[in-house]
């Protein structure tokens, strides 16, 4: 039974923009009534719609693969028409108009664009003393981030990127994408390096400082931030990256409180003074535990970049378990003026577990990530990492840890296909819990579309007549599926499901309740120390 929720005088959002009408069951305005009493005429369909039949992208009669190749996947060796077919463009250029990066097209094609972009931006600055943020021509949206001596630009023809966020009145998604690409450059170069490069010579070609890996990383990020698809064929965590960026929460792991606190105290116990932040992650993807000084914070975006760069670095290493990584990285949101030194050691939990004389078959990689501000600390930090590993090997509960990490599956009520829960209670790190992710392109693109629209839509407040919690906000959009969000002071819950809205809300609240009752397993994983 649904808790007694009452919709306030505000109307429940009807978000129908850009949808084919026959796919819609239009919802009439609801007010002052019990949600549980709502009756819907729409009958839920099986969720088998293809993204090409939704109004996300231009219509085209090609097969899915052809479609993606033509409109979505990046290409460097394109002619003018092929270039114009792409639904999304990203450019990074210097203030003098020299290209640094482009998602699509080669130099010949984009040099004209970069010149033009600089000219437009500069004449605005010159004549109006203002920076261009968005140029809106209806079907096309051009966003600009001016970070002299660099300019970042995106051009989008994608439906779900067209609408403004109803809460912030901003093109949040497009803006965040450009910030992410800029932060990537800061991560590997740091702000002073970029500034110095252009000092006294604005003609500098920043590409001299970037490697092929960097361009690949930028492609990969651009694709994930736009479509939830990976730049290469491996979509393993691409949708998760998209979603965690959208809701601004870092994916957490599910680990019992006992084990988590053991690991926390291990990190704290062995911490040497030079360590600023320390993390244990599972496969560089989800945080198991983290230690941080009371006076300093590390942002989601910085952790994202840190783990991403390490991950891409590891791709080039044959046997990561025998390697110690020691790399300088700039954490732009923490401090963009210099580098921290990151030590990474990866080990396979499966290899230290013996059951009936046998090892586990599936590997379960755990990474120790230690961040120091002194580049001469390598050996001390390495020693610390080794002690932590030794202790984990001796841990009685390591078997359980393995089980928990490898069985991430979250059981869902039958009405709900997918959800993301963003925790707002724990302030040290913004984290989210994401249910099992789609891996095929069709589902990913649809989910990206659904979640983007949902996130940008306006919600209405529901006043709680009962007990503990304060006001909740509800928002929903009906397609052949229903997407809805429930938000209060402690969490944001976004989900996709099918069936009656009232059932969905009721089931959604059950999931929320379950997550809350397991709060310590999901979110209590940051420990602070005196620095």
């Amino acid at each position, binding site marked *: 039974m649904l808790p007694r929720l009452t919709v306030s005088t505000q109307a429940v959002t009807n978000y129908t923009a850009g949808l084919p009408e026959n796919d819609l069951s239009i919802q009439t305005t609801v007010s002052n009534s019990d949600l549980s009493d709502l009756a819907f005429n729409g009958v839920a369909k099986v969720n088998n719609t293809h993204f090409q039949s939704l109004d996300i992208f231009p219509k085209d009669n090609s097969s899915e693969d052809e479609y993606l190749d033509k409109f979505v996947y990046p290409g460097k060796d394109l002619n003018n028409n092929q270039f114009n077919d792409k639904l999304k463009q990203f450019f990074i250029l210097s203030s003098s108009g020299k290209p640094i990066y482009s998602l699509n097209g080669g*130099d010949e094609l984009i040099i004209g664009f970069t010149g033009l972009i600089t000219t437009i931006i500069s004449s605005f600055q*010159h004549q109006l003393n203002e920076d261009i943020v968005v140029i809106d021509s209806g079907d096309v949206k051009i966003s600009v981030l001016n970070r002299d001596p660099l300019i970042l630009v995106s051009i989008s023809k994608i439906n779900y990127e067209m609408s403004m966020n109803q809460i912030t009145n901003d093109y949040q998604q497009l803006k965040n994408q450009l910030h992410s690409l800029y932060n990537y450059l800061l991560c590997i170069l740091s702000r002073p390096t970029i500034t110095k*490069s252009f000092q006294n010579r604005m*003609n500098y070609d920043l590409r*001299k400082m970037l490697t092929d890996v960097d361009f690949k990383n930028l492609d990969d990020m651009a694709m994930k931030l736009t479509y939830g698809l990976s730049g290469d064929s491996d979509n393993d965590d691409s949708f998760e990256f998209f979603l965690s960026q959208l809701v601004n929460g870092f994916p957490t792991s599910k680990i019992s409180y006992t084990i988590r606190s053991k690991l926390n105290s291990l990190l704290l116990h062995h911490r040497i003074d030079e360590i600023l932040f320390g993390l244990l992650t599972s496969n560089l993807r989800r945080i198991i535990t983290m230690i941080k000084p009371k*006076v300093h914070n590390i942002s989601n975006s910085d952790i994202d970049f840190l783990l991403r760069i390490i991950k891409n670095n590891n791709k080039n290493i044959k046997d990561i378990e025998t390697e110690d990584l020691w790399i300088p990285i700039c954490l732009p949101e923490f401090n963009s003026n210099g580098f921290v030194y990151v030590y990474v050691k990866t080990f396979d939990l499966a290899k230290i577990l013996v059951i009936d004389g046998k090892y586990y078959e599936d590997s379960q990689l755990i990474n120790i990530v230690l961040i120091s*501000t002194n580049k001469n600390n390598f050996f001390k930090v390495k020693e610390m990492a080794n002690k932590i590993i030794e202790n984990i090997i001796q841990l009685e509960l390591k078997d359980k840890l393995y089980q928990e990490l490898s069985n991430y599956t979250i059981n869902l009520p039958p009405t709900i296909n997918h959800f993301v829960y963003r925790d707002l209670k724990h302030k040290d790190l913004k984290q989210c819990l994401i249910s099992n992710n789609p891996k095929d392109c069709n589902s990913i693109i649809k989910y990206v579309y659904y979640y983007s629209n949902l996130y940008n839509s306006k919600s209405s407040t529901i006043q709680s007549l009962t007990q503990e919690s304060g006001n909740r906000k509800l928002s929903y959009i009906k397609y052949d599926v229903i997407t809805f969000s429930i938000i209060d002071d402690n969490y944001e819950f976004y989900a996709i499901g099918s069936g009656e809205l009232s059932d969905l809300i009721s089931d959604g609240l059950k999931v929320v309740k379950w997550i809350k009752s397991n709060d310590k397993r999901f979110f209590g994983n940051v420990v602070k120390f005196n620095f």
Partner: protein
Amino acid sequence: MSGRKKTLLKVIILGDSGVGKTSLMQQFVNNKFSHQYKATIGADFLTKDITIDGNKQVTLQIWDTAGQERFQSLGVAFYRGADCCVLCYDVTNEKSLNNLSSWKDEFLVQSNVSNPQDFPFIIIGNKIDVDENKKISSLSKKLNNITNNQLGGLNYPVFETSAKDAINVESAFEVVAKMALQQEELNDANGNDVSDDYNDAINIHLEGDSGNCAC
């Protein structure tokens, strides 16, 4: 650090309205000439790949500007970060010749280049295909005065071209590229590349709150 094969050079073409800047560029990039005169509105961009000294790949990003004053407000973006500047005049128009030094000054002021005395300029006198009697009288003497003037003289290579008949256009731009490339290599050799020293470690204890992100 990746050794990119092609060097990208930004080339600015300046000069009075009607001297043939756009025609020169069209001839150089597309081997085309049009008798119609269309004023350039604001700016135009063209790209051309050429090979220097037989083995150096260079991409020229050519910024064709409007000579008309009402478009001059585009200013800074145009000039800054240029690798080479081409000053154009019309061999039949004495005023355009006399204005060369203003164009140069305008460029140096707006572009804010660090070593103005080393910056690569070239001069192009266009329209040499016209009848001798239409040309500026005692052109070479006047030109000489301008280029060899001790005070702020334009002591740069001079090319006489015809965009119409494709005379000397290619070789002029080759010299442009060569000079810019030389300057570029000089810059790199001087260690202006802020390369790989990751010594900018942050001092957490000193920076205290400023190192603390606002989240």
